[in-house]
């Protein structure tokens, strides 16, 4: 009796093999839909991404919302920490993959990155539409796990510790995304209560807070929101990395005079020239 082969269990993907090659798919189905036979040419990228994660066809408002989220965060700009990391790959002549991997590392963090989106998703689950709960959690934000691979949080997630007031692009994004959503959703709630929440957090709303509300309205899990935020921010990192690769390191900041060593022992004493000669 031959031993049964180990398989990958999946809800997402089904394949039928070509008659002449068991390692090549003749047809591939995503949650039951024929990807190359039907979806290609018929669905938008946002609809397909939604299908991959939710396993169902989105409502028109859901695909519009996801598409607008993708546009809003596709390029945080060359001052953003994740894009800067990618550009360091570009200027040094590193591989394309390493530029994207470089973007993912800071882009994953609790300071403006995907882990912050994860944290806000958890707050939505814990606080819902209870303003007092939000105020309590934001005024005294505590990490859920005492010991984890992530560094401890230094500000209430979803809000900008270095902000003076809510920035125009954050407000524009919030307004637009809210206009796409049902009136009883997280985005609508955030739009209505933004100022009260900012007061509790003692800093203005950040893009991570807006995007987490959008993912909450899309009924994404915290894990889905975290990974989609990472994925959807890569286009800008990629484009800026390639641009800096062309421009070269001479045109890229090195912060030559920006570093102060606070414990510099100074140059080592030079050997006496005469002694050295002897």
């Amino acid at each position, binding site marked *: 009796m031959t031993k049964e*082969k*180990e*398989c*990958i*269990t*999946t*809800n*997402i*993907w*089904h*394949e*039928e*093999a070509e008659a002449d090659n*068991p*390692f*090549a*798919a003749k047809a591939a*189905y995503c*949650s*039951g*839909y*024929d990807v190359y036979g*039907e*979806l290609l040419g*018929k*669905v938008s990228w946002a609809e397909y991404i939604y299908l991959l994660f939710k*396993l169902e*066809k989105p409502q028109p408002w859901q695909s519009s919302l996801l598409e607008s989220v993708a546009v809003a965060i596709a390029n945080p700009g060359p001052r953003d920490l994740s894009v800067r990391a990618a550009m360091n790959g570009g200027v040094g002549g590193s*591989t394309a*993959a*390493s530029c994207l*991997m470089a973007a993912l590392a800071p882009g994953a963090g609790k300071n403006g990155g995907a882990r912050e989106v994860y944290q806000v998703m958890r707050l939505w689950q814990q606080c819902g539409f209870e303003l007092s709960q939000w105020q309590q959690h934001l005024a005294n934000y505590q990490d859920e796990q*005492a*010991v*984890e*691979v992530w560094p401890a949080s230094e*500000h209430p997630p979803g809000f900008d*510790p*270095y*902000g*003076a007031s809510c920035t125009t692009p954050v407000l524009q994004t919030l307004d637009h995304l809210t206009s796409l959503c049902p009136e009883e959703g997280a985005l609508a709630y955030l739009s209505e209560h933004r100022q009260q929440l900012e007061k509790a957090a*003692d*800093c203005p709303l950040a893009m991570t807070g807006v995007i987490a509300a959008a993912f909450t309205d899309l009924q994404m899990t915290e894990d889905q929101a975290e990974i989609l935020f990472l994925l959807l921010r890569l286009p800008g990192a990629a484009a800026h990395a390639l641009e800096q690769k062309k421009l070269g390191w001479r045109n890229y900041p090195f*912060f030559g*005079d*920006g*570093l*102060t*060593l*606070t*414990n*510099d*022992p100074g*140059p*080592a004493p030079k050997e006496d020239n005469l002694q050295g000669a002897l």
Partner: protein
Amino acid sequence: MRGPYTLVHAEDNWQTDMGAWFSGERVVFRGKDLFTELNDFSWFKLLMFGITGKEFDDNQIKLFEAIWVLSTSYPEPRIWNNRVASLTGTARSTCVLATSAATAISEANIYGSQAELDAMYFLIQAKQAIDEGIELKSFVINHLKTFRRIGGFGRPIINHDERIAPLLNKAEELGLANGQYLKLALDVEKILLKERFRQILNVAGLAAALMADQKITLNEYHHYSVLAFSIGNISCYIDSSAQKEGRFFPLGCERLDYIGQEKRDW
């Protein structure tokens, strides 16, 4: 401090005591000249100096290295992080990408960084409990009932850890197996086995105990562990890249066990 003025102050102003390169002249590392004061350090001694700011003696460095050599340096391509390196090799990508990605996924829950942190944190909590007069047995059983698992004890796939004996022997040979955290870890294992919880001390628990006995903190332990799997990662990449492309555990279409929706129209 919050608000944009904090950033204005930080602009072009990075204050550090970690180190710097003085171009064409010298390098300072934690207040010491790399070329004249640290030039005789081994790579591992310099790594631990960078992580902790402390200079460890030769036996301590041998122990820190031995933990990596004996517990995580397996050229076993089926282990998840090594498998990433093997897949990268068979896909004809680069060794650095293989090792970086394999290192990144080593920050995992069921093995790797999170498991290592959990192991040391449990021992720290157990020691605190004893210091507060709580009986170890009741602490252990309460912890297990609350969290359903104890970091550093038990093992996925099998209930035996072949790495314990060689690492313990090495620690004894170096004279570094007498610490309070190691005794505590062994006492916890005795309790778990006597109470029939079938949770053996695993190598993450042993390593955490040995490191805690050398006064390595949780954060330092996390940073020390970052490259622990790199030898296995690189070896697995070399193996799969030396063989024919695409031959590393290929999967045919029939190897997908689809349990989703029936075929349907959009």
